[in-house]
């Protein structure tokens, strides 16, 4: 395990969770408001649908738990968001969320990391969301190219 300090310390195979999670209506409304997702299913429903983009926050949850000192010497940059949902995930639903550092690899001189996350309905043990997150860990170099 390479957890406990920086995101950039994470290693292939590191397990994240499982953790018990209940996403609240407040969390859904706040996230959707910030992203201008004003659909009634997010803002008005007493048990709103959790937008699939919120799966990204589960990675951040794991970073908070396992990498409390932040990203390391360079800012990381989010490169790919890849989500599949198998049905509606609603606020208030007890969930089990877990993740794994699937791979770290070099591509065109930059280092990338894939983290796979699953979100399951705890009571039915039903898979609701699968998410793969890819970040570039060597952002300073990427930023020079972008500038």
């Amino acid at each position, binding site marked *: 395990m390479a957890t406990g300090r920086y995101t950039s310390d994470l290693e292939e195979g590191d397990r994240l969770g499982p953790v018990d999670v209940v996403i609240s209506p407040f969390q859904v409304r706040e996230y959707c408001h910030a992203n201008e997702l004003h659909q009634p299913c997010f803002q008005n429903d007493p048990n709103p649908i959790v937008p699939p983009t919120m799966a990204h926050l589960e990675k951040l949850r794991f970073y908070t738990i396992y990498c409390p000192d932040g990203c390391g010497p360079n*800012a990381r940059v*989010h490169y790919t968001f890849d989500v599949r949902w198998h049905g509606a995930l609603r606020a208030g639903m007890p969930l089990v969320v877990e993740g794994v550092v699937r791979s770290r690899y070099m591509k065109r001189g930059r280092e990338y990391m894939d983290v796979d996350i699953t979100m399951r309905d705890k009571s039915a043990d039903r898979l609701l969301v699968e998410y793969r997150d890819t970040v570039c860990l060597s952002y300073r170099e990427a930023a020079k190219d972008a500038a």
Partner: protein
Amino acid sequence: MDRTPMELNPGDEIRSAPRVMTRERMRWYVDALPTVEANDGRVHFSVPTIHDDDEYAKGQGLPGIISDGMITSNWILDLLLRSLGTQVLEDPGALLTKFVAPVYEDVPITCVLRVEGAQPLPQGGQRLSLKVWAEDGAGKLVTVGTAAVKIH
């Protein structure tokens, strides 16, 4: 869009109205993250990031702040839901986005869906596969990806 989702055909494109990626929109997202994480009903503020702090962004080699890629992902999702209905979240679906160019302050962003395939399903409805992207005012791609949803 003047057709129903079931009338969409491969090659059809749906474009959003442009939204300007203002400093406020970037900050709304940045501060939403600790606010959602705290989950106590109050607003919480982020540590400095490349998305809201000019000096921090310059220290990372950027000319200025850039938006978080999840904002354009959410704007693409918004266009998907406005165009095809929120029912697509009740059935299995997928969304993939890649952040291929930085989005700087005050850049106008247009989101686009293009139907690539429409497969009728035995139980009714059809499965749409789409290319999705966000482009700047000059038509340069900043976010690219795919989506797959069931429509009725």
